[in-house]
């Protein structure tokens, strides 16, 4: 019986105007997105290569002058534009995308907005994630909002139930058929888009990409299931389809527009953090204290004479200053991470938001990617520091007074650039992606089950007359 219901519902959906319109709209947006991505990714990669090339050249130049200069000069490591950004850009344009480091410290991060235009209003990039989060969730509501109330109005519901079909089977049939119909719109769109991106040569086909595409489709299917459950709920709550439509639209606006866009407000008010100015003040105070406690002559400098005894005092002071500042800043960074993470957890009460975070994790992008790079560069920095101190130790002409900021009292020999450890960003591992995804996955599954169960209970009690 379930099969009959499913077949009838799917055919009903397929022949409907909304299916045709959704298909055309989704396909059009997918194609527009892919064409746009091909173009923007190429220019982003070009810019990245140029910047990276210059950064490597600057490092080579410093290394050829002296190993100390190479070690103490702070430089940026720019995160590469992600090839799979067409699935989800994970708001990487707005997140910090450059890490500042030297052999002595990982100073911090920033959003290098070199490629973005401050005059453009902020907008969501039209990638696969956006298409599912906004259009597909909307289409799902369109397929389900009148599934019950609409049939009641056209008086077919009573007829359907007069057959030997249980209410549960009927509702589940409607539910599954709505999900399948939506997937019939999404999957061709995504495949066409993938084809365009592959044919244009922006990205190359790999097992990883296949996995990410499959993960995206699975997660989008899950979102569809949750939204369909909400749509059915709206449909069984109301007695007529007009009201259920309004309920569904209100829910959609709440999930897709209001909650995700309240995150900055939530972050600031529920999880307030210290202001950047006051952190800077604390750093200044720490510096002043250290300066006051430093032996006289610590600031005396003569770059012509590496063995000037004051250089040792200053090297000592500079190391202490670095450690003091690092402690304060790293602490503040951890607070920032916590504020961001907690806000994300809270706004995942919206399935659309949870879906977004889930896709970000699936493609290994956005915040998680940044955090991995952030942790990795700390490991790298230790290696870089060890490399440098070993090099310095070998130089008999160096006083070995390690100063993290100055090219004075350590080796003046050039470093062989080939042997200098380089930082490379590693793509996120499967477990690295799964771990953050788990929470959002659980939220979506539980929410889907609960809402479907609620609509089942209500449907059992539904007056079909």
């Amino acid at each position: 019986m379930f099969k009959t219901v499913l077949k009838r519902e799917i055919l009903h959906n397929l022949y409907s105007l909304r299916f045709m319109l959704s298909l055309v709209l989704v396909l059009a947006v997918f194609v527009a997105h892919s064409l746009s991505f091909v173009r923007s990714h190429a220019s982003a990669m070009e810019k990245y290569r140029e910047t990276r090339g210059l950064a490597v050249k600057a490092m080579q130049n410093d290394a050829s002058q002296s190993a100390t200069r190479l070690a103490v000069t702070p430089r940026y490591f720019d995160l590469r534009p992600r090839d799979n950004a067409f699935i989800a850009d994970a708001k990487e344009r707005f997140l910090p995308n450059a890490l500042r480091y030297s052999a002595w410290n990982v100073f911090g991060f920033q959003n290098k907005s070199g490629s973005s235009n401050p005059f453009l209003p902020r907008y969501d990039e039209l990638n696969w994630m956006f298409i599912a989060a906004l259009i597909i969730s909307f289409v799902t509501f369109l397929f389900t909002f009148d599934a019950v109330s609409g049939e009641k109005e056209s008086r077919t519901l009573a007829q359907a139930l007069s057959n030997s079909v249980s209410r549960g089977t009927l509702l589940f049939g409607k539910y599954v058929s709505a999900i399948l119909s939506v997937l019939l719109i999404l999957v061709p769109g995504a495949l066409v888009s993938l084809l365009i991106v592959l044919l244009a040569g922006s990205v190359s086909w790999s097992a990883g990409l296949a996995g990410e595409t499959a993960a995206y489709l699975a997660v989008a299917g899950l979102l569809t299931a949750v939204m369909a459950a909400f749509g059915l709920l709206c449909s069984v709550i109301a007695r007529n389809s007009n009201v259920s439509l309004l309920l569904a639209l209100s829910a959609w606006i709440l999930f897709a527009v209001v909650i995700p866009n309240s995150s900055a407000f939530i972050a600031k008010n529920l999880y307030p953090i210290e202001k950047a100015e006051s952190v800077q003040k604390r750093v200044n105070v720490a510096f002043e204290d250290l300066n006051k406690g430093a032996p006289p002559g610590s600031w005396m400098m003569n770059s012509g004479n590496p063995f000037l005894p004051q250089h040792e005092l200053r090297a000592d002071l500079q190391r202490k200053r670095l450690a003091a500042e690092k402690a304060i800043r790293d602490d503040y960074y951890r607070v920032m991470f916590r504020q961001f993470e907690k806000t994300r957890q809270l706004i995942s009460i919206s399935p659309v938001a949870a879906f977004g975070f889930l896709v970000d994790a699936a493609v290994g992008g956005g915040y998680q990617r940044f955090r991995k790079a952030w942790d990795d560069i700390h490991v790298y920095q230790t290696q870089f520091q060890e490399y440098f101190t070993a090099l310095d130790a070998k130089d008999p002409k160096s006083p070995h007074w390690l100063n993290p900021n100055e090219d004075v009292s350590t080796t003046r020999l050039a470093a062989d650039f080939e042997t200098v450890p380089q930082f490379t960003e590693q793509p996120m591992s499967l477990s690295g992606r799964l771990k953050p995804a788990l929470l959002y996955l659980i939220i979506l599954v539980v929410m889907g089950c609960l809402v479907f169960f609620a609509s089942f209970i209500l449907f059992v009690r539904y007056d079909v007359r």
Partner: protein
Amino acid sequence: MIFHIAKKEFLNNLVSARFVIGFLLCLVLIPFSILINVDDYRDQMVRYRLDLDAAEKSLKEIRVYSALRPQIIFAPEPLGIFGKGISAQVGNKVRTRLGEMPLLAEGVAATRDNPFLASFFSIDFVEIVAIIFALLALLFSFDALTGEKENGTLRLQIANTVSRSRILAGKIAGILLTLLPILVFCFLLGSFVIMLSGDLSFTGREWGRLAALALAALVYLAVFVFIGLLVSSRTKTSVTSLVLCLFLWVLLVFIVPNLSSYFAESFVGIQSRDNLDRVLNDFDKATLERIAAVEKSLPRPDWQMSWYSNSAEDGYRELYGLSASYFEWFRLRTEAAEPMRLDNADKKWGPQRAYLDSLDRQARAADLLAMTSPAGIFRIVASALCGTDRATYQARMDDVRRYRETFVRYLQGKNIFASYAYITPTPPSAFRAADQLIEARSGGKFKNMREYDDWAGKQADFRARFQILNTVKLPNDSPDGFPTLNADDMPRFSGRAVSVFGALEGSILRLGLILFESLALFALACVAFIRYDVR
């Protein structure tokens, strides 16, 4: 007759579920959006006051003209509470520099404190209005004709002696009459929240702009009513009409505006900021080389010893306790270097402007594409009215650049680059030759420079060479005791307030377009209804 039809429509709508739910939706979302942004505005005001105090304080603590670099802080725009526009991403601080024209303001609000929060978007009143009003307008108009046709009442109406155009006019009036209270209610509610938050006070100008925003919202609303009617008059059933209307809503309100920015960014490139920075750096290097050449050509001072010196960016240099000829050396250097740096700033402005133009071109392309949707036009007009759009920001930055010219003229008028006051508060009458300084500082141990040099050459400990010169402290050897600079005659930056007409000036064309759109849609709806098969 029109009145009767309008009244019937109005009453019909009033008792419908959509009116109640629409009203409730507004009742929740409007205060929420306003409160979010009031909170944000307060935060900005606190920062603004802190920044302003810091800027004022730093002006009062300086002792030399080379440190006089007024910092301009833009006050947050009160109407930004209604429409944020691009205000969160363009910054609000500009430091007046001699060596560079202001390019973009610093202190971008979105990346302060926690830069990760920049990836969170936030919603405002204008956005809510654009989304909800379009939806309500479509929901009230999609079945205006199809619904009556399905009920069989349309036939009855037309059987009376009333023309189709009157029926249509009556329906439009009825729908607008239903929506108008919601719109008025939303704006009143918004204003009410503003008035309740005690620390906010809007001037008459701001209320005027808010009223203009309400008018723009009304026109926007009308466009969507006409779209709904047009769809309704071209379809046979309400369901079809509804589905079409909802798709149009998603397309026009969400997809087109996003797509337009996305397309503009992909297909209308901007110059690379990194590249610009490199070009500017090259200019700076060339200027530094020219200045170094000047330094070489200057007569050598008798003692190249900066007893107490401070220097930082943009030509700041504060000197104490130098020999008279070394002071003179610095004066001559500055007299030549500062005009060179000013000239360098003018040269750099070429590439800077090209970069700004490329940003502007891309944003204009995005605007142009967004104007294919009434929601896009409404957002542009609304941010212009709220004073948070690109044009307002650019006008403000132009003002800042003009102010820099005024400031430079002020410095040049004082012939300050050729004056010692640019680098030291020490009066020239107190300058001494190197020999005198050495004699005084060493407490008479050395009579002149040569004696000191002979002695110093024999000292193994580097520090001892300086300690001997600390035997007697001279009064002019440090900033202590010198008064701070009085720059009260310095011209001040004054921003201009955005007036209703000023804000509308750039948007007239867009408002015209949206009006034209609504008229065209109305005409189309009329024609479609006249040809409508009412059976």
